[in-house]
């Protein structure tokens, strides 16, 4: 009970200057996070340098909740590479392995077929109607590194948004009531 009383007291005693300082500090933290994110996008060459594994189609290598570090270079796409791609008209990126490559002599364009390690069949059913191959513009990046379990935070926040609101509410309360 005393803690609630303290909190209410400290909210009542907020001075404008202190509030503004805290708001600026918060803004600085948020913008530095954004700067780091954008810098990572430049360094890795892809618009999503980090991706969370959402399905079990690459088990036992990648489990749901793992994080993949991606990189995209101009190197040609070859079999065996683990690529992240998006199907036209769908938002969710898919992480699977390339099992077939056909590269045109004249244009350098490639036809690519993918398959999840844990799936029995290749991804032809996942592609858009009538699409038989993936092309370079569908592919967002290649997986080069891997961190286990770290992605569960993102999955929980996406699937149970209430937790996201609770966390942000608690952080906001902490910022307002801290005596720094």
């Amino acid at each position: 009970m005393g803690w609630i009383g303290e909190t209410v007291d400290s909210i009542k005693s907020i001075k404008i200057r202190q509030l503004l300082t805290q708001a600026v500090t918060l803004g600085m933290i948020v913008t530095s996070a954004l700067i780091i994110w954008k810098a990572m996008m430049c360094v890795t060459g892809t618009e999503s340098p980090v991706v969370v594994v959402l399905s079990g189609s690459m088990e036992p290598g990648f489990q749901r909740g793992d994080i993949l570090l991606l990189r995209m270079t101009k190197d040609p796409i070859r079999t065996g590479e683990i690529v992240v791609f998006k199907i036209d008209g769908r938002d969710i990126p898919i992480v699977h392995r390339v099992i077939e490559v056909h590269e045109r002599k004249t244009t350098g364009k490639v036809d690519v077929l993918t398959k999840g390690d844990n799936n029995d069949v290749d991804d032809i059913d996942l592609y858009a109607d009538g699409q038989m191959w993936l092309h370079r513009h569908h592919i967002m990046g290649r997986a080069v590194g891997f961190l286990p379990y770290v992605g569960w935070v993102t999955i929980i926040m996406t699937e149970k948004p209430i937790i996201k609101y609770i966390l942000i509410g608690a952080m906001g309360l902490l910022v307002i009531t801290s005596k720094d």
Partner: protein
Amino acid sequence: MHSFGYRGNALLTFAVTILAFMCAIASFSDNFSNQTPSAQIQILNINWFQKQPHGNDEVSLTLNITADLQSLFTWNTKQVFAFVAAEYKTSKNSLNQVSLWDAIIPEKEHAKFWIQISNKYRFIDQGYNLRGKDFNLTLHWHVMPKTGKMFADKIVMSGYRLPDAYR
């Protein structure tokens, strides 16, 4: 300065930093492993070789694959993904790579193997260029770590040739 919140925060930050550092070191230690994999592939039999109704060549092979990938395993290895692909050129395509077989090797003990199977995935061309075609068979491996950087390499074996006529 000594409240529960501050102490909890300091502890958590320290724990996460140490954990990240350990993951980086584990991954870095993979650079020092001495890797000497070896493999041999033999085509035992061409089971059949036909032109499909939609115009593309398809061939079914029985392969004999012998490999020793034990030296690829380090203490930071979760599994090794190995696959065999056929590589060849055609008049339209400067490179075709078709995966014929793959396997997940979860432990070092299983990494030395001898297997005789027919191709797991269908070997279909874009067109009908496979008669008399010379091609390479490559054994690729992809080392998936417990944490950190993944790396991959391959052995290329050349000198294979498909028959000149359908059968």
